[in-house]
């Protein structure tokens, strides 16, 4: 299920937990906020590098919209299509903010998707050492 890596990282474990909780999730990609993929999980195939860049851009645009409206600086973006949903979440890790992109089927319940994805974000934040840089 996971890309070739010598040892599962805490990120892989968090994404695996996400998959275990909700079978309607197809793919999940964790990326740096500047669009580089750092972990992925999928039940099929996913263009992870492309999704990482898309997620970075779209979440940045969403955050810019929030900032312009005075609604805060960190958030999520949900896009619903005819055949599935894409959820993007800010992962507020000190020093190197991350983005989580989760692709679900059209049958996935949005509330459930949000719940498990936010739990995944919490796991990632808890297991990521402080990078010592502030953005």
């Amino acid at each position, binding site marked *: 299920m996971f890309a070739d890596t010598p040892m599962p990282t805490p990120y892989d474990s968090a994404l695996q937990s996400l998959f275990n909780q909700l079978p309607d999730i197809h793919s999940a990609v964790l990326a740096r906020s500047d669009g580089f993929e750092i972990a992925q999980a999928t039940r099929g195939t996913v263009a992870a590098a492309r999704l990482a860049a898309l997620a*970075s*851009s779209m979440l940045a645009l969403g955050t810019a919209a929030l900032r312009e409206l005075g609604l805060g600086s960190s958030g999520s973006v949900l896009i619903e299509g005819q055949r599935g949903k894409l959820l993007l979440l800010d992962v507020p890790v000190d020093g190197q903010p991350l983005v989580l992109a989760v692709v679900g089927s059209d049958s996935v319940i949005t509330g459930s998707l949000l719940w498990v994805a936010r739990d995944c974000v919490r796991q990632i934040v808890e297991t990521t050492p402080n990078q010592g840089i502030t953005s």
Partner: protein
Amino acid sequence: MSREYKLLFAGPMGAGKTTAIGAISDHAPIATEALNSDLAQHSKTHTTVGFDYGEVALDGGDRLRLYGMPGQSRFDFVWKVASEGALGVVLLADNTRPDPLADLAVYVEAFRPLADADAMVIGIGRSQQGTTSIDDYAHWLSERGHAAPVFSVDVRRRDDVLLLLEALLSQIETRELFATSSQP
């Protein structure tokens, strides 16, 4: 009747697109910057991952809407989306990069409809450094059939960025005038 011009700023990472828009926008630009983790590509701390947006009001009620593109090709989907309805593009080059003409080729190709319409100007940053001359850029463009003006600029200077935009608007208006006069 007042017009709105949607114009793009494109070029490699670190060429100064965000700085250029910030130098001339009437309000603080909308920015979508993320912490840069690709320090091998460029040492700057932040990089645009969505787009920058700024505006300039002109005399007579016309308005420029300025979109700064992310430089890295992994964000080329942003280039395509932003190109919809764009009337022109400012391509910024960084003359200290290893092969600035190869960089230019990437963005001329990415914005080919605007380049082919000569709705394009080239701004060369750090032109006193590096080995590529302004003439080299002009020659490279001419060989490929492009009549884009080429300027040496410091995008931190408002007047330099305005020069680029004036040249671009002139290019656009000339094309429109020609298109109108060519109609039967």
